[in-house]
């Protein structure tokens, strides 16, 4: 996505002054008034040192965590983190999650894991009437991520790359507009990670999907539309050149030392 296109696209998610602290013997502020806009079809990378609050910000954006102060807006409507049902529905229908450790349920096979958001959404009765459509969509996504031949396999029988591809397919089942990815290549070797990066880029480009990803992977960050560095609890937008690591790792860039 070009800069011009990015600026013209509609803002789908916005955070205003997000603050979040943790109590670790004493109050430790992690996010100190984070403002962020994510536009339709945009791919944003959030980088920063370990423990600086990247994942926390992602969790607040996806309503998994509740901010101490600040607001999250979705398509012009403020999200109330205290309304559990609305947040559950938001996570199920509007957002897709991808985690560093894949997080597939070991009791279900790959296809069932991909179908899981729909299984959560549908009651036993509505599922019965829509089961063919759900299954067909899940199979399409499995094919899309290159796992058409591994549908019946349990997670224990899949490689790391396959697990992450299945997790991405799962996150896409509800046709979300926003994908939140927490270090999606963090647990993969370089070659497998490259495959995942390519897949995410294709999805953003082809499906016009917004992706916010937290990463330490310079290669991945380099290929996003924007890179934001979390420093002392606030986001700083960086130019593409700035994020290129000195020794291949983003945490080693000078600005990360301040976090």
């Amino acid at each position, binding site marked *: 996505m070009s800069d011009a296109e990015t600026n013209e696209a509609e803002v789908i998610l916005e955070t205003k002054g997000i603050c979040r602290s943790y109590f670790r013997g004493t109050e430790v502020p992690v996010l100190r008034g984070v403002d962020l806009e994510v536009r339709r079809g945009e791919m944003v990378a959030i980088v920063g040192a370990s423990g600086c609050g990247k994942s926390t910000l992602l969790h607040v954006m996806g309503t998994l965590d509740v901010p101490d102060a600040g607001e999250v807006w979705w398509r012009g409507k403020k999200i109330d983190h205290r309304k559990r049902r609305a947040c559950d529905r938001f996570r*199920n229908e509007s957002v897709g999650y991808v985690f560093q450790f894949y997080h597939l349920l070991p009791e279900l096979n790959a296809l069932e894991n991909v179908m899981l958001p729909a299984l*959560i959404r549908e009651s036993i009765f509505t599922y019965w009437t829509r089961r063919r459509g759900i299954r067909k969509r899940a199979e399409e996504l499995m094919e899309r991520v290159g796992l058409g031949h591994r549908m019946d396999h349990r997670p224990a029988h899949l490689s790391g790359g396959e697990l992450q591809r299945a997790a991405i397919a799962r996150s896409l089942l509800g046709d979300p507009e926003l994908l939140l990815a927490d270090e999606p290549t963090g647990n993969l070797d370089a070659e497998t990670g490259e495959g995942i990066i390519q897949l995410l880029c294709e999805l953003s480009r082809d499906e016009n999907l917004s992706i916010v990803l937290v990463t330490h992977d310079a290669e991945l960050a380099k290929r996003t539309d924007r890179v934001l560095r979390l420093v002392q609890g606030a986001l700083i937008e960086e130019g593409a050149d700035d994020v290129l690591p000195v020794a291949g790792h983003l945490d080693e860039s000078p600005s990360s030392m301040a976090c």
Partner: protein
Amino acid sequence: MYKHLLCSRYLTTRYIALFSVVSVMLGVTTMIVVNSVMGGFRQRMLERLHGILSDVIVESTTMDGFRHPDEIMSRINAAVGDKIEAMTPAIEVFGMLHFQNNGLGQTFTRPVRLVGVDPKGRAAVGEFGDHLLNADNSKDPSFELRADGKEWREKNADLFDPKFGVPKAGSIIGYQIATFRGSNMFEDQFLIRPGQEVVITTVTAGRKPEPVSDRLVVVDHFRSDMSEYDSNYVFMPLKELQERRRMGDAVTAIQIKLKDEADSPAVVGALRAALPPTFFHVQTWEDKQGPLLQAVKVEAAILNIILFFIIAVAGFGILAIFYMIVYEKTRDIGILKALGASNVGVMNIFLGYGFILGLVGSVFGVILGVSITLNINEIEETIYKWTGLELFPPDIYYFKEIPAQLDPMTVVWIVAGALFIAAAASVLPAIRASKLRPVEALRYE
């Protein structure tokens, strides 16, 4: 939908939870078997007591009895005649029984209850005939000496003094009075057989009771399989006992069989109004055996409470295993919540899982319990053959076989209780799972 899918998957993949299934199954099985055996005992005992006692009993408040029983029976007929099928007078008094066993060369003297009856009348109001060992007497109860008794007397004629002749009156002796079984014996040994003679001693009726004795010939044995009766009762003809006790036509009881047993309370009420309570005590057979029946009922209730703790223990097993599973599944719970599962939905997974474990355990428990109950005597026999251990000695329990009776409603209650406990045991772990914060759950490794 995910709740059902995960419940079924946990059931087939979490093998540790199968221990809960086994404990529920064993609890349900034990409760079904014990309840069936106790229910069988109770039912058999009720049938026996009912058969011996008849539906309603009008008793004299004194051992001297009441005179003119025909007139009393007319008054009973006038009050509730339309509900009566049969009735018969009887005398029941304490006495002593004395006899000699020639084989052992020993004499026996025992306290007994002497019952004077009209055998046909007694058979009409209860199951008197069914409890007599001689087949002829079972069909047509009588105090006449039958073929077996006559034969025995002919063979052992030298034991009797011919000048005394055959005693005029016959008697039917309780089976336990007439037999014994040694510790290494497999069959009962008869101390006294039909054809032999006994001496009974009782007291006369009237102001000053005086002891009276007479010889009687044993004509049969009475076996109800109720120890209380078989070890105490000696039956003799009503008229003979009236004569010995110098009672005239007096009797101590009138036994009544009703057309419909359900009318018993109404009949008792009507007769209490019709007969003066100073002389007559009217009660149903259940009233008469009230303390015994109540004791059995209380015993069954207490046993059920104790046995229910077995299932409660299984419940604690489910609780412990579920806590472990929730702990183990913390990250999965986080994933489910991240994908939009509600707290209630997550809670329902574990509640449903507990319920299914209880259901599966109960189904297997019912199958096993019913199978054991239906084949309990064969199982007892097999154990006896293999180990020599007699689980159900007839001389103690006094039934030839274990009288198990399966009550479907009892099974339903046991299953309902097991399901309730299984579901209740999973409540705490389910609440804990639902309260897990997704962020912390996902961070859990």
